């Protein structure tokens, strides 16, 4: 019977040839966009190279970035009963707790500001930062379903995570502004520098978020590290105390924490109290550049294996 089997194979091969001769090629009327897209060639290769940051691709996908931010914001408000109220309540309650314990009980200095303003001006940017950091860390894992089913530059995810927090921040900031004015403080020209400090906070969250989100996809341990990290980081930033309490000679090390510059600067720019954090700011900015640059490289390097590992 082996003979028969062989004949079968041969005859099928013959059939293959016959069919390929007789089957007519599928008619292909040119699509409208085809000529434009014909130039577009995607090359698929094993991951290689360290220094391709692929920021252009990020720009090409900016609409998706917009949709992801929009989704994050929308869902956050839809799932809660009182929605936006939380955005105001959270920093407000934190401020009250700080005022009570660090201010009234511990009597920490507050640069001549009312404790309420002193703390509120720090809590609003801090909460934006910590929210963004946590969000960025989790976003790759949270989107694992999508990541394993469709391609888009994964880099979009941490970017969307830090951007979506800006909506909450804006609401919190408006409340902060009203609050500050109600205490009779009149912000000066330094207010113009606020966006700079906000940008610094965004970039810090992004820089660290890039590292942590990729690591979180590889090792879920990161999830357990995060609450500790944010807590520690807050204590290492001048949220509950002024940075003037840090001895002068350690100030530059302190400044390596980018959030030190951000919080101190934010408070200063809004109220005019305290010192312009010039030296601290230089250290902070350099640190942020390193974090973001390194984070981009690391994230892109890991991108290839993220879909296989989440």
């Amino acid at each position, binding site marked *: *019977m*082996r003979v*028969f*089997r062989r*004949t*079968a194979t041969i*005859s*099928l091969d*013959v*059939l*293959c040839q*016959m*069919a*390929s001769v007789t*089957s007519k*090629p*599928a*008619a*292909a*009327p*040119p*699509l409208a*966009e*085809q000529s434009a*897209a*014909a130039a*577009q*060639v*995607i*090359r*698929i*290769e*094993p*991951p290689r190279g360290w220094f391709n940051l692929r920021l252009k691709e990020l720009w090409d996908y900016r*609409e*998706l970035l*917009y*949709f992801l931010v*929009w*989704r994050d914001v*929308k*869902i956050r408000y*839809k*799932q809660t009963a009182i929605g936006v109220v939380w955005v105001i309540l959270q920093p407000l309650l934190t401020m009250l707790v700080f005022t009570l314990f660090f201010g009234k009980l511990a009597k920490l200095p507050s640069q001549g500001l009312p404790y309420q303003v002193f703390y509120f001006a720090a809590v609003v940017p801090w909460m934006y930062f910590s929210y963004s950091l946590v969000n960025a860390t989790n976003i790759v894992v949270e989107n694992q*379903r*999508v*990541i*394993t*089913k*469709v*391609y*888009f530059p994964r880099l979009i995810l941490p970017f969307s995570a830090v951007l979506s927090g800006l909506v909450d921040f804006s609401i919190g900031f408006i409340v902060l502004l009203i609050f500050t004015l109600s205490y009779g403080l009149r912000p000066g020209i330094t207010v113009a520098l606020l966006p700079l400090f906000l940008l610094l906070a965004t970039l810090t969250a992004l820089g660290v978020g890039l590292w942590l989100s990729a690591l979180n996809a*590889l*090792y*879920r*341990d990161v999830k357990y590290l995060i609450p500790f990290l944010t807590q520690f980081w807050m204590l290492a930033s001048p949220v509950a105390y002024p940075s003037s309490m840090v001895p002068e000679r350690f100030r530059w090390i302190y400044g390596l924490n980018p959030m030190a510059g951000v919080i101190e600067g934010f408070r200063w720019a809004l109220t005019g109290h305290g010192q312009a954090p010039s030296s601290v700011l230089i250290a902070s900015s350099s640190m942020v550049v390193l974090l973001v640059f390194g984070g981009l490289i690391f994230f892109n390097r890991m991108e*290839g294996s993220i*879909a*296989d*590992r989440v």
Partner: protein
Amino acid sequence: MTTTAIAGEGLSKRYQRGLAQSGLLRDKLAAAFRSPTKLFQRNRQEMFWALKGVSLEIKEGEVLGLIGRNGSGKTTLLKILSRITRPTEGWAEIHGRVGSLLEVGTGFHPELTGRENAFLSGAILGMTRQEISRKFDQIVAFAELEQFIDTPVKHYSSGMYVRLAFAVAAHLEPEILLVDEVLAVGDIRFQKKCLGKMGDVARAGRTVILVSHQLNQIRRLCNRVLWLDAGALRREGPTAVTVSAYEEEMGASRGDDEREVAGAAQFLRWQLTGKNRLEDHVLPGEGETSFSFVLRVNHPLFNVHHGIALYDQDRHLLWGNAADGLTLKPGLHELRYMLPALPLRPGVYSWRVSLFDGATRIDDWECTPPMHVVTVPVTHYRDEFAGFLNIPSRLEVVSIDS
């Protein structure tokens, strides 16, 4: 001339076995503690190749089917081509905008409304906001969800969910579409609609790669088929032939090589005869079918009984008959059959012929090679509802009120 849409060379993907479970840093640290040098070595045993050295070329406008057993690398290949994962070795080049549909409802969120999800999912699948806005009414109409489009999808039935999800996906207009078994969901009428839409896509000259276990679907849509086996390319060629070969292998677990030889008589071979045949064992049409079995008789036989049966891939008996009182002289004989019609769906079938003297078996042959039927399917588009017979039908709905 037709140009190349996708070209790939030596595509390979290596995975680490059990990677998902051992994602804990603890394990890594523990391993590093035990033997620090091992941390930097790759454990060869834990690696396996999901795809190994697959090369392919797909022309513009071609509809290519990917078939193979579970774990044969179909999905891995699709994921590499859609850039979800990177190959470990090899390269591929894609000419044109790629859309991939590896599941229905990618990026859907239950809290969002149908409208919001349509935009979100569209954006994730690669449509621009303008594109979605422009096609939005079409999408809603296709999904038949006009009244519910502003309801959160968590209140949708699963059918509604799938309809919306597919409607979005169906309006994706990339030059190259990669599809993984997504049609195997939803209600039948809607599936038919989707299949129609897919057919439109194929006819519009778009390049499509379709992974499916529904061989009927592959037959209906694809011009050419790649058969993957254990991560490697097993065979490629025109749909009918490749799918049949695959089906044959899937059903070829029964051993027929150790047939008992030499008795009073023995069946030697069989073949299709007459006009309705493409090859000796390939049946192209449903109409008049003739075939014959060659029998060698060693000793004279009197008043023997002959049986014939036709089985499908799943060993369903489709047809059987018998003849009594045959008298055969020694020598070669041909048993010729003629059936006015043999309306079989495409697939692999096998004949079985036997010869008995009273209760004593002279020969009982499971005919090889099997019969390949390459008719055009005209029955239900899903294999499980299509039945055995490939008979064209016409439906008329007539009102008989009063």
